């Protein structure tokens, strides 16, 4: 085993453990903090896969923005979250059963797939980011996702603001 593999196993174990804590922590704030740790673990794995750009973006967007948004939402809905009583549905064991089934199915598919033994070639060339930037505004390539992304963000912004601004007088 190479050093990289050992680090991977270590980081993956931490990530999965904190993911388990996210879905099982009783206090919502703790769940959010575990989520931050899980997301940081995923960022490290991105860095190990030579996708440094996305490792940083993961930290920037997920840890810097989405988890802060989640923490704010938790604080705003605090009163309902008295951390008493079960945090899981009554039928949680059914969910657990289904999830184990899904995981087993996925594992079988992954292991039996012939392409799984592929080995990685040399890493990406240094100007992968440059190519990405060029292709994003290239009309023959991905200019559609680029513009659609901005429209989608605009829609999300308008929708979320419309919903969350308190309407004075009467129904929203």
């Amino acid at each position, binding site marked *: 085993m190479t*050093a990289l593999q050992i680090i991977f196993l270590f980081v993956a174990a931490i990530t999965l453990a904190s993911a388990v804590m996210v879905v099982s922590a009783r206090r919502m*704030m703790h769940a959010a*903090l575990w989520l*931050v740790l899980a997301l940081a673990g995923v960022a490290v794995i991105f860095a190990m896969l030579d996708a*440094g*750009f996305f490792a*940083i*973006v993961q*930290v*920037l967007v997920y*840890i*810097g*923005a989405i*988890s*802060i948004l989640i*923490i*704010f939402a938790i*604080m705003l809905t605090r009163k309902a979250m008295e951390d008493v009583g079960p945090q899981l549905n009554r039928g949680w064991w059914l969910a657990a059963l289904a999830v184990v089934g899904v995981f087993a199915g996925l594992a079988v598919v992954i292991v039996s797939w012939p392409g799984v033994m592929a080995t990685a070639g040399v890493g990406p060339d*240094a100007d992968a*980011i*440059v190519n990405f930037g060029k292709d994003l505004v290239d009309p023959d390539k991905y200019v559609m996702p680029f513009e659609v992304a901005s429209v989608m963000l605009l829609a999300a912004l308008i929708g979320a603001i419309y919903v969350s601004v308190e309407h004075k007088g009467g129904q929203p």
Partner: protein
Amino acid sequence: MSFWTDPMAVIANLIGGWLAGLGMTEGWVTFVLSFLGAGVYALLVMLTVVLLIWVERKLLGRFQDRLGPNRLGPWGIFQTIADMLKIFTKEYITPNGVDKVPYNLAPILAVAGVLSVWAVIPLGATILGANLNVGVLYVVAIGAIGELGIILAGWSSRNKFATLGGFRAVALLVSYEVPLVVSLIIPVLFSGSMGMNNIVHAQKDIWYIVLAPVAALIFLITSIAENGRAPFDLTEADSEIVAGFNVEYSGLKFGMYYVADFMHTFTIAFLFSTLWLGGWQGPWAEKYPMLGLFYTAFKAWFIYFTIIWLRGSLPRFRIDQMINLNWKVLTPLALVLLMMTAIVNRLVPEGMLVVRTLALLAVNGILLVGTSWLLNKFAGRNKRVVVAPEPRPVARPEQISSES
């Protein structure tokens, strides 16, 4: 290759050769070298803070027409060391009901969120930690760790004031991050790289502060706000919300927030010098990187002095003013500036540096004038209500009327 042209490589070869002689494999040698390099570098930055605190107190003293520290050692230079010894022996008071792990993690994260930035700041042509090809984004992303530290501190203290202060601070920090990030796109756009050292290399002909002075200004303002320092020191406004997110901290845990604060100012100065003032660029800097260290430090000290000067001169903003300044002035201005810079810079043919500089300067000038015109027209409308007492009846009005 001598010590003066590439000091890092010489030291690395020396230690690396010694380690390899001990029978280490190549991977381990890299690991140990990186660890030593990072450790020494981080420790040096931490220790610089001791000096910084003295410099800042001394300068602030002079701005306020007093002496500043002056008892311990020449010019009071050992004052910080005495303070440090004192704070090391202070008791940690852990209030009832705090959430232990986040409570203790928060000051560590606050420092780490600033200290980690130094990994990508180039101090000389070859004196640098890592020339990451996403360096600029890394600087922004690491800031998120500091914000997390503030949230943790505010929430885990189980104190109304700390919680309110913490969330208010984070709401302001994330707001000011928007124009900060947008202004950082502009040097990336000019240099065609996100690596900090590549950005410095690209400033060989002209510093970016000449090409985009407004962006540099926005970067400076938002960075000071991120730092939470006067005139944006609202998050720890002691007259309003006890002290903010760190009320329940004591001893060195409390001190760590101040370490982070002082270090942040210094970091901003170095970032500004790297991104806008050509970093280590200067006469013979590429040949002798040690000279580059001197140039960076000189430019950074200039900015550092300016930041302290601002702190000593300007009154504190109100929170609504701060929010309005960010969302209604800085953010639209940064976005418009980015668009206009991108278009104008492309319209000018390649190679014509003077024309390009003049065109970009014109864009910046137009934007500045336009912004101040709009501000005068719309923001000046809300005249401040003057709260003054009614004129009282006095015995001999003729003596008073001469004053008014």
